[in-house]
């Protein structure tokens, strides 16, 4: 695994074509003869070479970039050879070109669209040659990565070690507390009862939540083992008790077991990747948004969460939330706020990693924002705020300001009533430029009315801190 760090805008010009690429340079560049980059998004401008031509603009992200340039290169070479292109394994959703008369060529964009919504574009020979030229220029200057890279979040050393230490203390405590219970329960199937000592760790475990399904719990552990792709840093993550997002057992109960159970486990933190329903493909014409956060790796605190085969029932307090985070809805809300599986993969561990590691991050978040997730006077908890707590901890953890940054970056975040992040508004052009570095997730369609939305401002300081201001109207 390698890390990706610096955003690099690239621009290539030819008389009728301009290619602009926003890429992130990969650390593996040091072993390459030219910079290795991960393309985040790109814009292709094709100007008219004749009066009859219309200018074109195509925008896309990494997923469509390599197929597009590959289609262009392959087609040009086939034209020069004079041999018809073989269809090969290319699907209809892949970009490809077909000749159209002697000097014209039709570019089929596959799943891409021009900014005007067209699925095809007619190119003249000059435009095709210039398109090939800009692609050549890019190939000459950089080497685009064919696969997505998992970026390692840049954590501060003291924070890593403090997190590890806290996790180890918690793990020892839990193991010590649970071991006698486990021994006394060996060979007997008694009712589930949370050890009192667990309350030190998870004092607010809601008892109305049905006890976890033992099979589900064990399968969670299995899934966790399978998903263990953590990098060195993530492996060193503490094995703190799992938090709310890691309690999918509720969602896995038979329907009706809990009336307010999440309607789906999609995006549920410990659902296996295959359980995650693929989200609708992002609209390529609206891919201004960066492809999410730069740090996929799955953190699995196996050594700590898996004391020597405790009975599943004894894990009940672990699998339910620590702290005041509501057990169900916020989990779903935040998971839904991650718009796509592929994009979620770029979280540390995707959605899994985000939630698996949320305990230490929630600890960090609680330093500044625990009041925000406390129940209100009516006893209700604003789900947006609890989602916010997790989000805040995540972005604080990830925010590594570039040295060149001297100003504060301000973003306005709007959550709907269900706690889904529905809008991120950079306050200025600089904030827009650095959007990819902030670790803010992409957006989801609002699940519920935005009438009761929560609006906050996040201030990313050049010194590495992230501050939050609640600017919700009224």
């Amino acid at each position, binding site marked *: 695994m390698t890390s990706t760090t610096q955003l690099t805008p690239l621009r290539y010009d030819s008389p009728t074509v301009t290619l602009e690429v926003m890429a992130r340079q990969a650390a593996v560049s040091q072993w390459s003869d030219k910079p290795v980059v991960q393309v985040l998004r790109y814009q292709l401008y094709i100007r008219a*070479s*004749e009066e009859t031509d219309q200018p074109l603009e195509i925008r896309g992200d990494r997923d469509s970039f390599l197929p597009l340039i590959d289609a262009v290169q392959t087609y*040009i070479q086939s034209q020069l050879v004079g041999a018809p292109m073989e269809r090969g394994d290319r699907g209809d959703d892949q970009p490809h070109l077909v000749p159209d008369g002697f000097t014209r060529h039709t570019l089929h964009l596959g799943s891409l669209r021009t900014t005007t919504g067209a699925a095809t574009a007619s190119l*003249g020979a000059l435009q095709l*040659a210039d398109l090939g030229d800009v692609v050549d220029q890019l190939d000459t200057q950089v080497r685009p990565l064919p696969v997505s890279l998992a970026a390692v979040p840049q954590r501060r050393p003291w924070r890593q070690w403090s997190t590890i230490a806290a996790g180890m203390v918690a793990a020892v405590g839990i193991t010590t507390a649970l071991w006698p219970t486990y021994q006394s329960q060996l060979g007997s199937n008694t009712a589930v009862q949370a050890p009192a000592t667990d309350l030190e760790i998870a004092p607010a475990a809601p008892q109305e939540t049905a006890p976890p399904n033992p099979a589900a719990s064990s399968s969670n552990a299995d899934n966790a083992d399978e998903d263990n792709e953590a990098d060195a840093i993530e492996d060193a993550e503490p094995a703190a008790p799992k938090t709310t997002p890691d309690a999918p057992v509720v969602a896995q109960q038979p329907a009706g077991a809990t009336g307010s159970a999440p309607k789906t486990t999609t995006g549920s933190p410990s659902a296996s990747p295959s359980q995650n329903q693929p989200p609708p493909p992002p609209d390529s014409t609206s891919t201004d948004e960066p492809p999410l956060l730069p740090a996929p790796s799955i953190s699995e605190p196996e050594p700590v969460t898996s004391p020597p085969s405790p009975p599943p029932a004894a894990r009940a307090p672990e699998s339910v939330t620590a702290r005041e985070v509501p057990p169900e809805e916020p989990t779903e809300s935040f998971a839904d706020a991650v718009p796509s599986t592929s994009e979620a993969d770029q979280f540390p561990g995707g959605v899994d990693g985000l939630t698996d590691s949320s305990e230490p991050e929630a600890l960090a978040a609680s330093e500044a924002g625990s009041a925000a997730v406390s129940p209100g006077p009516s006893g209700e908890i604003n789900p947006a705020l609890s989602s916010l707590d997790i989000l805040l901890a995540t972005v604080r953890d990830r925010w590594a300001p570039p040295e060149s940054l001297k100003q504060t970056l301000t973003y306005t975040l709007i959550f709907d009533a269900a706690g889904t992040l529905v809008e991120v508004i950079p306050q200025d052009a600089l904030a827009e430029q650095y959007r990819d570095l902030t670790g803010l997730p992409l957006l989801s369609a609002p699940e519920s009315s935005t009438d009761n939305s929560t609006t906050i401002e996040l201030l990313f300081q050049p010194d590495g801190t992230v501050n939050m201001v609640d600017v919700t109207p009224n």
Partner: protein
Amino acid sequence: MKSQPTPDPAANLGASPAPEQLDSIKAQLDLVLLALESLVGLGSEAMLEAADQLGIAAIMGDRVTLWRLRQASPLRKGQGRKKLDIDEARGLVLVSVHLAQQHQNKIREAVTRLETATTQNQPLHRVGILGDYLDTFTNFYEDRMTPDDLPNPETLRDLALKLLVDLLFYSQPGGTRRLWLALLERSR
């Protein structure tokens, strides 16, 4: 002024063709140079000068050597055809692309006119630059190539136009690689 000769600039093109591929390569390279000659009116002096600038004068240093290299095409009239080796083929690629890049503006202009005339269904021979090019190409071809398999006028016109469009791609920065790969692919 003579440029500093490099150790072997023609050797940087990568994959080498098998000997049996060279016949096709010889013919295609000669046609590319023929198209360039027809469009921009350059002669052997320009080719020798390009070879000198590219540091491959050892491969083609005088008119006789150049003539023998081009006579290597199996399409050419005459006997005593020289066998073209790989380095000579690479040298001709470098010279062809170098000259195409030097005359890129004229190539673009011709292709632009071709696009316009085609779109408007205009007779190509009525477009000045295209008419001249087609006439010159046809004359050169008929003069130099063996009459045994001379193509008909339409086929010859299409060949000339295809070579013109190909020159557009070869005149770009990545043209050398494109031409070399196309020669290898075509000869398979």
